[in-house]
């Protein structure tokens, strides 16, 4: 099972009473707002969930794994996620069930 936008639309419909069109719009706007912040160099910190952070990576030598040829990897900015302590401990508390589930 995967949580997708469609699932979130259902949740807003069932739990908050939004109609499906409103729900879809708001979900799109929410993720767009986070993208806008990050795009403008602003990190996003969501309490109880985690932070979307930015990292500037300097250029480094890379290699084409198929041909072995050396190709430089240019400097870039990437997004990283740091889970909040609260999210981490919720996962930790469920680790037994998770281990069972993933070993099946």
């Amino acid at each position, binding site marked *: 099972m995967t949580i997708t936008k469609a699932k979130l639309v259902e*949740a807003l419909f069932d739990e908050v009473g939004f109609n499906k069109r409103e729900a879809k719009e708001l979900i799109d706007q929410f993720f767009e707002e986070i993208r806008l*912040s990050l795009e403008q160099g602003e990190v996003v910190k969501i309490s109880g969930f985690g932070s979307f952070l930015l990292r500037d990576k300097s250029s480094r030598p890379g290699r084409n794994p198929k041909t072995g040829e050396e190709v430089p990897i240019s400097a870039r900015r990437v997004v990283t996620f740091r889970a909040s302590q609260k999210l981490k401990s919720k996962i930790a508390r469920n680790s037994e069930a998770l281990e069972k589930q993933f070993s099946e």
Partner: protein
Amino acid sequence: MSDKDQDNTRSVAKSGIVSRLTQKQTQLTEEDVEMAVNTILDNMVDGLVSGERVEIRGFGSLSLHFRPPRVGRNPKTGEQVEVSAKYVPHFKPGNELKHRVDYV
């Protein structure tokens, strides 16, 4: 609301995202938006905690990665400690987010 961290990185919290989202609404109040954002996040957290993957096209995906047990060390005392196996959340940025954040 934006604030300045010590390292001069601008950041926005959930409340800031909610108020920016509210400004873009014609029908929904700030309370509606806040409830919706909380519902979105709660559903993402619940999914993740129960081992589901969260996948938002154009934004990214969140899933759990397994960390096998290991023997670690208390950095202060040098004492050996057993660290049990655990699951940690991992975020993989989607293509749109990746490209918009990177300097072109």
